[in-house]
C-alpha cells in the first residue's frame, strides 16, 4: 500500500511567454486525482501566473487563467505565493485572483487557498515535501 506523499509543484515562470505555466497547471490538475498531499508554489516570475484580469483576445491564444479558480474544486488547498517575489514586482495579494476551496467539514465554507509566505517560510514548506516537480 502506498502512503501519501507530499507533492510540490514549483512555478517560477510567467505565463504566455513560455508554455511552462499552462502545462504545469495541467500536471497539478491530473495530480489532484491521485489523493496525494499537494502544494503549489509560486515564486519569482511564477507569481505573475495568478494575476487577475488576464485577457489574451488580441493575441489570439488561449487564456488559461480561469483554470486556477478550478484548483479548489480539485481539492488543491495549499497555494503558496512568495511575499518577496510579489513585492519586488510591485504587486500585492490584491492583484491576484481570489482562489478558494470549500471545507466540507465546515458546511462547505469558502476558505482562501492562497497563502502569502516569506522566503524563509517558503524554505520550510519546501523542506517538508517528498517530491518537488519543476517546469
Amino acid at each position, binding site marked *: 500500500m502506498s502512503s501519501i506523499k507530499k507533492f510540490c509543484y514549483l512555478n517560477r515562470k510567467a505565463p504566455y511567454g513560455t508554455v*511552462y505555466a499552462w502545462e504545469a497547471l495541467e500536471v497539478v490538475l491530473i495530480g489532484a486525482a491521485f489523493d496525494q498531499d499537494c502544494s503549489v508554489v509560486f515564486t519569482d516570475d511564477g507569481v505573475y501566473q495568478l494575476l487577475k484580469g488576464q485577457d489574451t483576445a488580441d493575441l489570439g491564444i488561449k487564456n488559461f487563467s480561469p483554470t486556477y479558480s478550478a484548483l479548489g474544486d480539485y481539492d488543491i488547498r495549499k497555494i503558496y505565493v512568495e511575499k*518577496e517575489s510579489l513585492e519586488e514586482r510591485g504587486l500585492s495579494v490584491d492583484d491576484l485572483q481570489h482562489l478558494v476551496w470549500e471545507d466540507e467539514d465546515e458546511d462547505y465554507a469558502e476558505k482562501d487557498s492562497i497563502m502569502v509566505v516569506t522566503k524563509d517560510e517558503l524554505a520550510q514548506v519546501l523542506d517538508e515535501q517528498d517530491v518537488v516537480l519543476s517546469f
Partner: protein
Amino acid sequence: MPILHTVNKSAYERNTLESCVSKALKGSAVLLLEDGVYSAVKGGAKAGIIESAMGDVSFYILGPDVKARGLDEGKLINGVKVVDYNGFVELTVSNDKVASWL
C-alpha cells in the same frame, strides 16, 4: 529533511541561483550544473551569492560541465566541491529529495 537543490543557469543570466539560495535551509546542498557552473568562478560579481551562503549550505559543481566550458577548476570559488555524474547520483541519494530550480 535536507534538499539537494540544482541550478542550471548562470547567475549572470537569471536570478535562479539567488532565488534558490534564498530558500536553501542550513544543511542543504546546491549542485551547479550546465550553465549554472559559471556562477562559481572566483571574483565574479555574483560570486557573493555562493560565498555568503557557504557556511550553511554545501555547494557542489558538476565537473563535466565545468570542463566542457573551458573553466579551470582552480578558478572556482574555494569550497565548491567538484563532482562527476557518480557524485551527482550520490548527492541525490544522500539528500532526501531534489528540487530543480528551472
